[in-house]
């Protein structure tokens, strides 16, 4: 009985790693599309999102089968219940990466974003968080998961700076040309960048959620709700 459960848990683990890799790819591709202003890259996202949705359903099915057939307890139960929660966050990462790509294809932003606005820094931080959260799950490393939770401060700080920079852009906007003479951005582009960075900030939050479920699956401590789930 245990060997069958071990096989099922191994399958679950492998599928979680695959879904994590799909999410890493999604966030990297959408960030590249933004930073390189590459609409062709952005148009690849819907197919990737479809794969993420499929993986979400597949993992849920594996989890429900384990619960049905094995009635897992203790660390097995924590792993399965965490996986069920994590795939929801991973799926949202896919959706929000796709939302970012959609903005790129709408051409509100007409060229590469001026480097004075820390979008690249924010994208790199978020990619790091998603990658580390998935790694923490794979390696069963709660210290790495804790570092992901802390890293979110950097993303939040980046987002604050983006908002400040965009406010400055709006203040400098020439009333005749409708553009900021320094960055070349107009109001539509400012709103698009704000939306993109808000999505990045949300993806960072999902990475934090994933990291917290990794911590719970290892330690039994639910940091989000400040206590042990029993």
């Amino acid at each position, binding site marked *: *009985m*245990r060997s069958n*459960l071990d096989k099922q848990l191994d399958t679950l683990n492998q599928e979680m790693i695959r879904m994590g890799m799909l999410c890493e790819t999604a966030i990297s591709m959408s960030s590249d599309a933004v930073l390189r202003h590459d609409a062709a890259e952005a148009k690849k996202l819907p197919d990737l999102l479809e794969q993420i949705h499929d993986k979400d359903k597949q993992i849920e099915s594996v989890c429900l089968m384990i619960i049905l057939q094995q*009635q*897992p*307890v*203790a*660390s*097995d*139960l*924590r792993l399965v219940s965490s996986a069920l929660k994590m795939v929801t966050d991973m799926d949202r990462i896919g959706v929000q990466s796709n939302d970012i790509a959609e903005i790129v294809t709408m051409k509100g932003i007409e060229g590469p974003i001026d480097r004075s606005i820390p979008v690249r820094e924010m994208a790199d931080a978020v990619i790091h968080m998603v990658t580390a959260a998935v790694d923490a799950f794979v390696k069963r490393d709660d210290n790495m998961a804790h570092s992901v939770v802390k890293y979110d401060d950097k993303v939040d700080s980046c987002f604050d700076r983006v908002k400040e920079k965009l406010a400055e852009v709006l203040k400098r906007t020439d009333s005749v040309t409708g553009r900021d003479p320094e960055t070349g951005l107009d109001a539509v582009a400012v709103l698009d960048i704000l939306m993109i960075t808000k999505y990045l900030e949300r993806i960072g939050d999902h990475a934090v959620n994933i990291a917290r479920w990794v911590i719970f699956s290892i330690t*039994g401590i639910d940091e989000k709700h400040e206590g*042990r*789930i*029993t």
Partner: protein
Amino acid sequence: MTDDTEGIILSGTIVSVKGLNLWYGDHQALKNINVDIPQNQITALIGPSGCGKSTFMKTLNRMNDLIPGVKIKGDILYRGQNIYDASVNVTDLRKKIGMVFQKANPFPMSIYDNIAYGPRIHGVRSRAKLDEIVEKSLKDAAIWDEVKDRLKASALGMSGGQQQRLCIARALAVQPDIILMDESTSALDPISTGKIEELCLQLKEKYTVIMVTHNMQQAVRVSDFCCFFLLGELIEAEDTKTLFSMPRDKRTEDYVTGRFG
């Protein structure tokens, strides 16, 4: 028992076991057991075969006394009194701490007489009083509606699940405080098992239930408190939710997740 759980004191403890050791001849079956059993709750005793859980349960109403070569050391305080004191009347003790076994064992007599047997032994002679006890016991065991029209029929004609509930009713008839259940559903189908489990949940309102079970899911479903035994030691005693979600001891984790046993 691990240091973490040693000395757990729960409010409403009905049985307090202190330094209990038991030998069958040279073989030590229980090793320094310390635990407080909570009152009006269901306590499950789990562990692999031969771990000492049934032996432990039988020490609670001195069923091991009759086994040749048995030696018991330590204290078992039931409502503050050591049940191994010389002054304790074992018949009275077993009246207060009743037992239901793995296999239903109705007496070869009518349903009514099965229930009335205990009270009669304890001196109840009034027909009206016996009628009252029989009805109350069968109602408490959730079987009254099924048998009230055939109380004079033989108990041996009942189904296995009904026979087991009859045995529970028989235990209730002498007004016990604690009911010990030794794998009392292991021979029953899922529906009969479900009825006994529902019954246990009702019984804990009035009684304390201590059950030995090999069915982990049953322990999770019905028990409030759980004791894990291994090789004669009490490894972990915890509230059931904690024991099955975040056990303290790796041996408990390995057992409940099916890694051994």
